[in-house]
């Protein structure tokens, strides 16, 4: 997609405004950031702040309580949190690696490694959440 720019240059010119692959990652980094503000706040409330006054160790019953009360809504929150957190965290690490090295082979290798870590943890985390949600009363 091309757009004519006249406002910031002395001569009108065409600039490319269609998103490239990197632009999509940038957009998703922002979208997941907004998602995390909500999903992580809900998660931290139930698993951390609500338990702060309770002495002793966190138990399975405590972790599962919100699943029992708000099964679908809480499970949805946790799955979206898993996706947003993994994408935002691992893409953030990729951004740091890309700032740190310009070596194409290393960049590609790290991208593949982070993608595999992300997919692996998404599947495993999804299974964990399924176990918690499916055993809800």
């Amino acid at each position, binding site marked *: 997609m091309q757009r004519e720019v006249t406002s910031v240059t002395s001569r009108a010119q065409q600039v490319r405004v269609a998103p490239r692959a990197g632009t999509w990652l940038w957009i998703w980094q922002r979208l997941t*950031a907004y998602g995390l*503000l909500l999903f992580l706040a809900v998660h931290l409330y139930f698993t*951390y702040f609500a338990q*702060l006054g309770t002495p002793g160790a966190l*138990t*399975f019953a405590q972790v599962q309580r919100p699943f029992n009360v708000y099964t679908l809504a809480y499970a949805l929150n946790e799955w979206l949190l898993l996706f947003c957190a993994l994408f935002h*965290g691992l893409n953030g*690490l990729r951004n740091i690696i890309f700032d740190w090295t310009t070596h194409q082979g290393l960049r590609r290798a790290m991208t593949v490694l982070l993608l595999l870590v992300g997919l692996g943890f998404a599947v*495993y985390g999804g299974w964990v959440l399924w176990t918690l949600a499916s055993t809800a009363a």
Partner: protein
Amino acid sequence: MSTRTMLDRYQTGVGYLARILHRLSGMVVTIYMLVYIWELGSITRGGVASFDATMASYNTPFWKITHALVVALVVLHALTGLRVMLAESGIGLRVQKATFWLSVVITLTLFVLLFVKAIGTITA
């Protein structure tokens, strides 16, 4: 201003410190998240007994304080990240130093409160 002076000023500026802290907190929280998912996975590896045993192993002063620190780092990352996103929209550029220090003050206050609360619930 020479290039060297500009670089020195850049590397000691508040914006630079904000960027470094945003990245460091992001890295720490990401690594913590991966370990966290794995530890929660004890429910799939050994059932409820294994899950409760894993959680009990985190019921120590060290881990309670670490959890308070991680929650504080999440808040620091979120506040400095919001500051970045607002700056990208051209909002708050004139008060970027103030918003950074405000983020630090909010984070430190939260950490102190969580630290005190965590210490209070530690059972011998």
